[in-house]
């Protein structure tokens, strides 16, 4: 199926035909504030794509537009070849997309295991994956390293662990496209390293990951490509090496140095 967008002006046709995700000219205004301004980016299968920028740059808002929780003022969203700009969030997810939330959205009154199980059951109900949800849940809880707390109620857990629950929940839907919004914050050095390994492992199965992360070291280690936002605008994109040398990026981060270190 070709993109039904072809009749639009040249600038709104997809630019990256191999992308698992592509957004084109997305803008979001909240009243007078422009949170996101004409942002276009893409994420490829089997790669980790970084989306970085100082606080308030518009990263989370971009995620909300992609998942359909935030209506953009302008712009289009494609998952694979399919334009999803007008689909409700749940229909977009069913195309194989899952995410985590920076401001936690866990199922607080369920246990860790039940959080993951619920997600596996959701997936079971709308996909043709016949694997029993309990098997999926067991495997994922193990894989993200939550076995020791699997019976705990999630709202009693520290934020760092709760973020892993969100990761596990997202993975339980077997996504082809995974959006991670600062999953690593609240983890110690070793846990962060393990998280990085897990992400790389996931990309080997062909998963596309879009990663928002303040931990520069982690971003530089795992990302294949990085997009940089500042004040809602895309100021750079390229490989980690290119981004590290980019003067615009350095300026943006110097200007917002203190916040970036949070």
């Amino acid at each position: 199926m070709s993109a039904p967008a072809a009749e639009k002006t040249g600038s709104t046709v997809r630019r990256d035909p191999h992308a698992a995700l592509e957004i084109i000219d997305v803008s979001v205004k909240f009243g007078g504030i422009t949170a996101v301004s004409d942002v276009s980016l893409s994420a490829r299968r089997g790669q980790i794509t970084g989306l970085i920028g100082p606080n308030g740059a518009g990263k989370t808002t971009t995620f909300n537009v992609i998942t359909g929780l935030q209506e953009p003022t302008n712009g289009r969203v494609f998952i694979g070849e399919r334009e999803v700009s007008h689909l409700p969030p749940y229909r977009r997810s069913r195309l194989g997309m899952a995410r985590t939330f920076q401001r936690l959205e866990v199922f607080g009154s369920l246990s860790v295991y039940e959080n993951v199980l619920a997600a596996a059951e959701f997936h079971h109900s709308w996909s043709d994956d016949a694997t029993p949800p309990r098997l999926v849940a067991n495997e994922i809880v193990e894989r993200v390293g939550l076995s020791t707390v699997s019976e705990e109620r999630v709202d009693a857990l520290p934020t760092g662990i709760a973020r892993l629950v969100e990761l596990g929940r997202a993975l339980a839907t077997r996504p082809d496209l995974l959006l991670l919004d600062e999953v690593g914050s609240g983890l110690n050095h070793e846990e962060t390293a393990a998280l990085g390994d897990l992400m790389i492992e996931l990309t080997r199965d062909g998963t596309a990951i879009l990663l928002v992360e303040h931990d520069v070291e982690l971003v530089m280690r795992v990302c294949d490509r990085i997009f940089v936002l500042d004040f809602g605008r895309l100021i750079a994109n390229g490989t980690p090496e290119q981004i590290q040398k980019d003067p615009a990026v350095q300026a943006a981060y110097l200007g917002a140095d203190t916040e970036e270190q949070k």
Partner: protein
Amino acid sequence: MEIFLSYTVVGIVAGCVYALIATGLVVTYNTTGIFNFAHGAIAMVGAYTYWQFQDDFQGWGINPVISLILVLFVLAPLFGLIVERVLMRPLQGASVDLTLVVTLGLLLFLVGVAQIAWDPNVTRNLPSFFNGAGFNIGYVQVSYHEVVAVVATVAIAISLRILFNNTRTGIAMRAVVDNPDLLAMAGGRPVRVQQLAWALSCSLAALAGILLAPINRLDILLLTLLVVDGYAAAIIGRLRNLPLAVGGAMAIGLGQNYLNGYAHSGFLNRIQFTIPMIVLFIMLILLPQDRLKTASFSGAVAPRVAGLKSSLIWGAVLIVGTYLVSLSLSDINLRTGASGFALALVLLSLLLLTGYGGMVSICQMSMAGLGAIAMGHVASGGSLLGVLAAIGLSGAVGALLALPTLKMRGLYLALATFAFATVMDQAVFTQVFGTGGNLAIGRPHIPGIPTQSDQAWMMVCCIVFTAAAVAVLAVRRSSFGRKLVAVNDSPAACATLGVNVNYTKLIVFTSSAMMCGLAGVLIGGVTKQVDALTFPALLSLVALLLARVGGINTATGVLLGAFTFALFPVFVPHLPHILHNQFLLTGIAAVSVGRDPNGIGGRIAEGAAYLRKAFGMEAKPQFVATGPVAGTAAAVFLEEEANLVSAGR
């Protein structure tokens, strides 16, 4: 033209009263963030107090002007201060749920107080100002009472505008809800400001009540609910914008009266009283709702859900226990027991909808009423077909009501369902039953099973409730139950995991309405007839509060809540006379025990878990939340008591 003018005059006056009500609501909402459901009841008490002061025969015969000044400028503000100090100040930063419970509890409490102080069976009259004197403009009669209403409203609107826009206090009042801490730092004192708001709001309510009562009738429930009509105007102003609210109030007042004047018969005439509620409902649909996102980590720690084995065992215990008790009960107490179980089924529908699903509803009794209507009309009122029709009709209406309300949460959903319940009261039940009329409801004949005696009917009610409770608990443990809790905890996360949140909510809302429909059959079967007063909106409100007090997330809790209410006639002789009112007691329970989100049932679950631990049993308590055991114990105890009382008579 004369007709037009006279309806315009009446419409403007009605609009003014609505505007006063809306203004009072907006003032407290703006400064404290609390929507005061009890505003109507405060207006009602204000009107009655004024009557008490100035009535020459049954009252104290004090000069009307002095009475008015006393009520509006002394008693009402004082009452506002007390309410602020005792109930509202502790609600700072509380969840919407809790503010709902407390303000609804206050509403019932005031209705109860009024019913005790002013016997509803005695007719009272509140004269218009100047005893109804007036003048004519052409052929149109205008009373001084109406002039006072308009002048007072205009004066108040202007002074409030000046207060809010041009004085420090007023600006502080507007700022306080957005950021009380900031205001405190800047030297404003939020407590002062909030006290002022409640005092002002209560005065406005009392004035509205005093203006409204002579135009209509001095009647406790009528006045309380008439004032609720003014809520629509407040919502038009989005609870914040006074000019918009006042404009909305005028539009509603005029629209309602033109309808009265020009649609003399037929559908439009019949619905004229429900116009404000319909407007309220539509405004709630149009209002921008909170985004899908909600805060997590807000859910109270709910008691563990019982397993299948334990819910079956304790269900059996409940049924056998009830049977044993039923052997020694008189007919009247058998009917009391039956209505207890029927009410428990209504509350059980709230366990599913609100306890698990997080959706507040104040129209469950109306759904039960629909069930009773279907039962009474299908196959001469006594067949299983009627039961199916009851479940079907309630379910269908539930689904229709759910569709526009799916996006609403908390306060908005509460208001919308309450608006629906009021419309059912005013436009449907009175029409179907006719004023003073009733509908015969039979107990369905089931081949081979006795259902006709009072004892048999009590057992039917008990078994139906138990089966439904076991089923609801099973649903909660199933994957659908997990989905329900997940949707409640975070609709946003569910949507990004591929869940059709609206569809899930629709299913729950519909199932819950179906349970109410079935409860309607049971309720109708107890008295064998129902009328326009069997399923009033106020009782839907009572049901919600009872469930909250008993424990809205345990089966034990809802059973307990229902029986506490149903057994009222049994234990009331033991209470001091001043407490002899169901509404009063429910209100008191709501504002005290109701603060605990898990209610009494939650405490019982905790206690049971503690005991099991103490006796060294499995640490993971299995039966805890079912605990119909507690329900049984309470039922057995109270019904023995019931038997003694009726035997002793």
